[in-house]
C-alpha cells in the first residue's frame, strides 16, 4: 500500500510520486496516510506541491489537497507544474505566492493607510494626503482637500476635493453633507451645477432635518453622487 505514493520533499515543496495504475481513492487514502505519518515533520509548513507519475484532473488535485488540509497541519500554497520542480523554482513560486497573500488586505494598487484631521477647514487652507484622508469637520468653500486614496468627511463638504490624485479612478469621496464646488476623482472632474436664474440658492431651507449622507464615485465614465446605501458600499 505504501508503494502507491512516494513522498519527497525539499524546504519549499513536496513532490508526490503517484502510482499510475491504482484507483484514485486508494491513492488518496495513501496520501492521507503519508501525511499523517509525517505530521510532526511537516508541522504547520507552508509549501508548494507537485504531482508526478500520474495525470490528475483538476478535481482530483483539489480533493487531494483538501484531504491533506483536513488530515494534517500542512498548508498547500500552490501547485507546482512538473516542469518546474527544481528547488530554486519551487522556492520562487512559493515566496511570490506568500508575498501576494500578505498583500490581500488592501486590494492591488490601493493605499492602505490614512491621515486624520479634526477641525473646520477654512477658505485658503488645504490638506494633501498620500494615503486615505479622514476629516472630522466641515470643508468650507475655498478650502482644498486632496488625497491619493479615498476621502471621508464627517461634516459638510462645500469646498474643492480631489480623491485618487495619483490617477486612481476607483477612489470615492464620502461626506455627511455633499455640496462641493468641484469634485475630482482620479482622472475625472465634475463641478457643482450652475445657479439657475431666478432660483434662490442663498438659504438652505430646513437644512437641519435634511442631512443626507452621500458618496461620490466614478461609474460609466462619470462621477456619480448618490445617497449611501449598502449596495453602493458593497460595489466600491
Amino acid at each position, binding site marked *: 500500500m505504501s508503494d502507491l505514493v512516494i513522498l519527497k520533499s525539499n524546504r519549499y515543496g513536496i513532490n508526490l510520486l503517484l502510482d499510475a495504475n491504482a484507483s484514485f481513492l486508494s491513492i488518496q487514502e495513501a496520501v492521507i496516510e503519508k501525511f499523517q505519518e509525517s505530521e510532526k515533520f511537516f508541522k504547520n509548513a507552508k509549501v508548494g506541491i507537485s504531482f508526478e507519475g500520474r495525470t490528475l484532473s483538476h478535481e482530483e488535485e483539489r480533493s487531494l489537497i483538501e484531504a491533506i488540509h483536513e488530515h494534517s497541519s500542512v498548508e498547500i500554497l500552490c501547485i507546482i507544474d512538473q516542469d518546474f520542480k527544481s528547488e530554486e523554482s519551487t522556492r520562487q513560486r512559493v515566496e511570490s505566492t506568500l508575498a501576494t497573500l500578505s498583500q490581500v488586505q488592501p486590494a492591488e494598487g490601493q493605499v492602505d493607510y490614512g491621515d486624520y484631521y479634526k477641525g473646520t477647514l*477654512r*477658505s485658503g487652507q488645504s490638506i494633501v494626503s498620500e494615503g486615505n484622508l479622514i476629516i472630522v469637520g466641515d470643508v468650507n*468653500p475655498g478650502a482644498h482637500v486632496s488625497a491619493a486614496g479615498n476621502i471621508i468627511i464627517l461634516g459638510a463638504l462645500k469646498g474643492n476635493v480631489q480623491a485618487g490624485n495619483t490617477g486612481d479612478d476607483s477612489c470615492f469621496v464620502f461626506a455627511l453633507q455633499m455640496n462641493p464646488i468641484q469634485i475630482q476623482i482620479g482622472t475625472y472632474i465634475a463641478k457643482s451645477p450652475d445657479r439657475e436664474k431666478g432660483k434662490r440658492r*442663498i*438659504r*438652505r431651507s430646513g437644512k437641519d432635518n435634511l442631512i443626507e449622507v452621500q458618496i461620490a464615485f466614478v461609474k460609466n465614465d462619470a462621477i456619480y453622487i448618490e445617497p449611501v446605501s449598502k449596495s453602493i458600499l458593497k460595489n466600491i
Partner: protein
Amino acid sequence: MGEVIVITSGKGGVGKTTTTANVGTGLAQLDKKVVMIDTDIGLRNLDVVMGLENRIVYNLVDVIEEKCRLKQALIHDKKYPELYLLPSAQTRDKDSVSPEQMVALINQLREEFDYILLDCPAGIEQGFKNAIAGADRALVVTTPEVSAVRDADRIIGLLEANEIKQIDLLVNRLRMDMVKRGDMMNVDDVTDILAVNLIGAVPDDEHVVISTNNGEPLAGNNTLAGQAYSNICKRILGEEVPFLDLDEVKGVFGKLKELFKKN
C-alpha cells in the same frame, strides 16, 4: 493689563472702521479706558468716522519712528475723556511698520488702557499681519453676503493659524426684510458656515451712514444699530445680554400689515 482686540474682516467695506468706532465709544460709555489704533496706513479713516480728523498732529508711524512720544500722538475724544485714538499715517504705506514694532507699541499701551482696539485694513497682506501681531482676541466683521462670508472664513483660518484663541463674529448690515423674503442669509446661516462664537448682529440702519458722516458714533443712542453696538460692548466685557429682536415693526402701517399676516 489691557486686552487687545483686533477688528478685521478680510473683505473691504463691511464695516470694520464703523465697528471699531462704535465699539470704542460703547466701551468708553461703560467706563473703560479705551484706545483705538488705526492700522490702515495710507488709507486712514477711523479719525474721520470719529470726527477727530482736524486734531491729528502726529500719527502711528511717527511714534514707531520715534519722531514723537506716544502720548503726543494720542488724540482725546470730544465726548469721552477715557477714549483715545492713535491715527495712522496717510502719506506712508503698510511697510513702514513691522509686526515686532506693533507688538512693542501695544505692550506700551497695555499698561495704561483697559481695551486696545486695532482697526485692521482689508486684505491679508502686511497691514493685516501688523494688526494681528499683538492681538489677544479678534472681532471678525462680516455682512450676510457670500463673498464677505468667504473672506471671513479665510481670515478666521489665518487668525487660528496665528494662535489667536478667542474669535468672535459680528454680522453687520443685516436686512430683516430681505432675510424674510429668503434673499439674504440670516445670522444662523452665517454662523453655521463660520463656526465661531456670535457676539452680535447689527441691522442695516441708515442712522449708521448719518452718524459716520457726522463723525459721531451712534453706540448707546436709541437707534436699533446703536442698541446693537451697546449690547456687543457688554458682551465683550463678558456680560450675558439677550440678542436684540432686529425685526422691529415700524409705525401704524407696519402693525396693520402684521395683523393681516396673522389672520
